[in-house]
């Protein structure tokens, strides 16, 4: 019991923005609105909101690896794709009976994490850091896309699942929760919404606890100064590898949910553009804070979708401009800057009141 309480105490700490009654009150209000939201909306809009939520996991993964760990990885979309394809192959082969889709979710995320262990071992134990890490992960991602895009022929299949080259895989079953009587099929509307929302809140709170724990403090110390962290006796390679694998698993969650949401996955979900988008959300939101990343991702996604109505090419140009301007003007991210400003304002207000 005391162990659990001490975990809860880690919800606040030096590595995450937001503390005290004000923040958690706001959190409760936002959560309540999110829970009540399907009551006031139609199935299509709710399904679209699920689509936004799905991307938050990959944004959080980049936030952990890049924002907290300081290693810029372009490989998140690769893990996204691996898990997505993994889910497709598993469910197309074994169906969705007896809750197997949930097992497939876990297995697919596990495959992505295993791939990250392999790649991360070569990178971190080879002491690759900084810009080289970005290049190697980018090369892996592009390679994977090219590989999947050429699997069009009938000889490319795993079990009964055809990989279908550039067109990608489709028609895999949605997530299904086994239930006495009739199992609950989570189609891309209210059912999936609550499932993904629950998972999101769980992951968000768990990451807050993790980042404020000693593990989180160590990876931030490594980001700030790897030599110093090493002198203090930490095996930085091990910490970086673990961070990388956690990030890969989160990106994998995104991949599986995306595949289950739209019931398709294509190689272009691992391409250059796909790899750029999470980077933009996280950079614009504020990469060194979980809350800023979540808020930034949702805002930028919504803006992107609104702009896409006028043509997705223009929307992408706008995203590029937004990214360059953010890096030049507000390198810590717009949402994080705004939240810090809000925090200072609140502090001044309470000071004056006291």
């Amino acid at each position, binding site marked *: 019991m005391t162990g659990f309480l001490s975990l809860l105490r880690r919800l606040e700490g030096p590595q995450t923005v937001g503390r005290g009654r004000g923040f958690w009150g706001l959190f409760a209000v936002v959560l309540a609105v999110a829970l009540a939201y399907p009551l006031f909306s139609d199935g299509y809009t709710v399904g679209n909101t699920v689509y936004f939520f799905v991307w938050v996991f990959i944004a959080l993964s980049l936030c952990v690896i890049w924002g907290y760990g*300081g290693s*810029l990885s372009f490989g998140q979309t690769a893990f996204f794709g691996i898990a997505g394809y993994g889910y497709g192959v598993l469910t197309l082969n074994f169906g969705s009976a007896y809750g197997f889709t949930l097992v497939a979710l876990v297995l697919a995320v596990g495959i992505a994490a295993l791939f990250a262990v392999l*790649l991360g071992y*070569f*990178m971190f*134990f*080879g*002491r*690759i850091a*900084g*810009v*080289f890490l*970005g*290049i*190697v992960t*980018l*090369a*892996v991602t*592009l*390679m994977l896309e*090219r*590989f999947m895009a*050429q699997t069009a022929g009938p000889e490319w299949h795993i079990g009964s699942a055809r990989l279908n080259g550039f067109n990608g895989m489709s028609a895999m079953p949605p997530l299904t929760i086994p239930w006495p009587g009739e199992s609950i099929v989570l189609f891309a509307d209210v059912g999936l919404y609550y499932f993904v929302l629950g998972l999101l809140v769980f992951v968000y709170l768990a990451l807050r606890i993790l980042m404020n724990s000693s593990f989180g403090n160590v990876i931030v110390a490594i980001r700030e100064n790897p030599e110093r962290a090493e002198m203090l006796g930490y095996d930085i390679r091990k910490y970086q590898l673990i961070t990388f694998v956690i990030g890969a698993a989160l990106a994998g969650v995104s991949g599986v949910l995306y595949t289950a949401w739209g019931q398709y996955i294509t190689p272009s979900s691992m391409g*250059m*553009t796909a790899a*750029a988008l999470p*980077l*933009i959300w996280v*950079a614009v939101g504020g990469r060194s804070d979980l809350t800023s990343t979540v808020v930034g991702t949702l805002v930028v996604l919504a803006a992107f979708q609104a702009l896409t109505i006028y043509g997705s*090419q*223009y929307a*992408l*140009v706008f*995203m*590029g*401009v*937004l*990214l*360059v301007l953010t*890096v*030049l003007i507000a*390198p810590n991210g717009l949402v994080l800057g705004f939240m810090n400003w809000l925090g200072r304002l609140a502090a001044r207000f309470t000071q004056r009141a006291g």
Partner: protein
Amino acid sequence: MDIATHLFSALYQFGDAFAFLVLSACGLAVIFGMMGVINLAHGEFIMCGAYVTAATVHAGLPLPLGILAGTLVSALVGVLVELAVIRHLYDRPLDTIVATWGLSLIATQGTLIMVGSTMAGVGTPFGSFQVGDYSYSIYRIVLFCSALGVLAALYALFNWTRFGVLARATIQVPHMAAALGVDTRLIYSLTFACGAGLAGLAGGLYAPTMTLVPTMGATFIMEAFVTVVIGGADVFLGTAPAGGLLAIVKSGMTSWQGQLFGQIGLLVAVIIVVRVLPKGISGFVLRERT
């Protein structure tokens, strides 16, 4: 088919792969080696060179002049990009990656909007010749000679000219060079322009051999990155031998299993080399020397 024709075929494929790797990587290598900046918009500078070359050739210029125009326009764009963006980010290397990626997104999509999804190409000049049962394109030989020429020209530029001396001084100890009256900002600008121009040159040289689409930069970028990662920071001690090594891997794997496996071979090679030599070939050579 006798041994000689086999040998020639292998040599030809090696030369082709070597030219592609060196030409697409040297612009990136100059910018990275001299400034520590990874230019993710490198592929878009290549695209820019190819497009300008094609446009000027369509306008009636001969191909060599078109390639020159492509090189110069890319270098000019490079100067503008350095002034507007890169200059402000020298102390934040990771952020230059992110910013140049934003630029690459803007360039790709901007070209798509303004020029359309494809551009009319340029015919491959010089025709081909016959050895044994196979015919080979003469232009590929020209490309191989160009790659050697570019390496030689870069060597001359950085070793025998005043700009080269100032640039190397700036790289070694920037504030000392500045104290001795070198305009380091100008040097950085010119170096970036040089890298961008080399990318444009690669684009111009390869324009006659491929379809011109806004995403064509992506075709080059992986090979360029892999070569620079394996080579390390020095163009001559790194990029050239890395190009040679990777060309063997790529041409060998390609003729054995096909194009895709050539690229997978490159990727595996880079991961293994980086595990063994974290600072690349040039880092290894320089460490041995000191």
